[in-house]
């Protein structure tokens, strides 16, 4: 088994950039005065000549990234998910995605686990916003290993990519030695035929723990990790719908427009089954320690167990 790593995916992102920049000279990194928080600071330290702080001006940063990409650079533009995808939505849409420029957008501090900063900084809409843009690939890695693979895959893809980064240090779930990140492929982490739990991001590990707990009570839950929300792995979802007949989704995001809707969109059209969307129920978050919030909002294993049981009842 690979080492269990407890690390925030933003940290893994910063490390991946440094590693990839060793061999790829086209990588440049942009930030909007949040390098210390998005962890592009790790890259900045190693490659100061390829790092550009754009100041607190996210709209301009996305445009600058577009211009750099048009000249053959591969810019990674980072900010908090709130500002990257919210403030700069239209710059991403019109200057990056419409001309299909090779820009990678990193949105850190996504989800409720941003914690104490509260509702203004807890982005719960980024997946919905980015999913809705043509040409955009959307990736939400669950842990350190997945983030390393995701950054590499994003680099290898010629086109715009949105990477969702978390603030909170989380234990890794992909600890198998043969772990390989495949863009657009869902990963079955537990097999079962009573119900399918589809999760993304930091909820994935909790979903696995929940499935193990459910098993003790005689419920065989399949757990599918969807790291690539767009394009989504339709085959794995249709198969799960056929074989388990019930799907429950978990995401640290508003239930509108995120993973749940992406899964529902596939299943309702290709193999309709009963589906429940768990996440933040169209509400804003509030301040508090990340771990407490995750518990309150039902993103820990006990919360997932409860939801699954009530779904099956």
């Amino acid at each position, binding site marked *: 088994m690979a080492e269990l790593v407890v690390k925030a995916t933003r940290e893994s992102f910063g490390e991946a950039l440094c590693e990839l920049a060793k061999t790829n000279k086209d990588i440049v990194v942009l930030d909007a005065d949040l390098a210390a928080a998005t962890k592009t600071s790790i890259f900045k330290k190693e490659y100061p000549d390829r790092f550009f702080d754009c*100041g607190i001006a996210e*709209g*301009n940063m996305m*445009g*600058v990234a577009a*211009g750099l*990409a048009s000249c053959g*650079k591969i810019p990674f533009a980072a900010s908090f998910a709130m500002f990257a995808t919210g403030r700069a939505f239209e710059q991403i849409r*019109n200057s990056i995605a419409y*001309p299909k420029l090779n820009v990678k957008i990193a949105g850190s501090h996504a989800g409720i686990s941003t914690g104490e900063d509260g509702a203004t900084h807890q982005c719960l809409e980024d997946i919905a916003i980015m999913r809705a843009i043509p040409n955009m690939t959307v990736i939400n890695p669950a842990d350190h290993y997945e983030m390393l693979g995701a950054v590499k895959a994003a680099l290898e893809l010629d086109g715009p990519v949105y990477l969702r980064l978390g603030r909170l240090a989380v234990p890794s779930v992909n600890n198998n030695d043969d772990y390989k990140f495949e863009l657009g492929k869902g990963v079955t982490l537990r097999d079962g035929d009573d119900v399918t739990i589809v999760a993304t991001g930091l909820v994935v590990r909790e979903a696995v723990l929940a499935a193990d707990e459910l098993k003790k009570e005689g419920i065989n839950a399949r757990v599918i990790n969807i790291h690539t929300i767009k394009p989504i792995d339709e085959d794995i979802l249709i198969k799960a719908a056929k074989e388990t007949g019930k799907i429950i989704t978990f995401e640290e995001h508003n239930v509108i427009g995120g993973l749940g809707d992406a899964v529902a969109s596939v299943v309702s059209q290709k193999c309709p089954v009963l589906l429940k969307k768990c996440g933040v129920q169209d509400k804003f978050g509030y301040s508090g320690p990340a771990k407490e919030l995750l518990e309150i909002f039902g993103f820990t294993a006990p919360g997932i167990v409860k939801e699954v049981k009530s779904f099956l009842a």
Partner: protein
Amino acid sequence: MNSNEKQELRIIACKARLYALEGIFNAKSGHPGGSLSAADIYTYLYYKEMKVTPENPNNPDRDRFVLSKGHCCPSLYAVLAMKGFFSLEELPKLRKVGAMLQGHPDMKSTPGIDMSSGSLGQGISAACGMALAGKIDNKDYRVYSVLGDGECEEGQVWEAFMFASHNNLDNLTVIIDCNGLQIDGTVEEVGGLEPLDKKLESFGFEVFKMDGHDFDDIEKAITAAKNVKGKPSAIIAKTIKGKGISYMENQVNWHGAAPNAEQYEIGRNELLAQLNELGGTL
């Protein structure tokens, strides 16, 4: 430049206005006012200044142009077509279904267009990115971007201006087409841009002024801007919105309206008379 060269540029600009008017008339939509005000600037840049050839429009060493006020593309398309980036036959198909020439510039569909633009305030940021890429790679290409004066009401424009001077982008020249009008009225009524020169200077730009319809003046300002070292340059171009068509000049209602058949004939005849006077033909 000598008088022959100047005459040649005037002829090309006049033809660009004719093609732009025709395209907008055919499409029954478009933005004639700003297309006519900026036509001389595009003409100078592509025929006298920029290092870019239609044979190799994606040459990594070429000079680049970003039309930040993307709606004023009909006359730019005409200049690019006359220069040979694509066929003149594309021009009358402007804005039609399946056309190469979109309502706002699309770098994917149109050879010679260096950046998709149209949402105001965004092109200038991309121009900054291009200039920065040139600095990173030690290339000596230049980047030009034309903005509208009304466009300068967008906050992103000033984010970009700050970025340009902070990064010493002396390979960037910004040209602001100050035709004084925007959709809802004069720029002074709607947004209040002045004193633009002082604002640009305080944002770290070397500022020049020119008559945007006088090729001697355009040459003087662009040459001076090119010689600025260590900071970006900006040229405030005084222009006439609707330039060349009497009933459109300085009229706010010709920002984004197409002429009807009668108006088209009048406008076309006025431009043809100017072309004839210059000794040019279509």
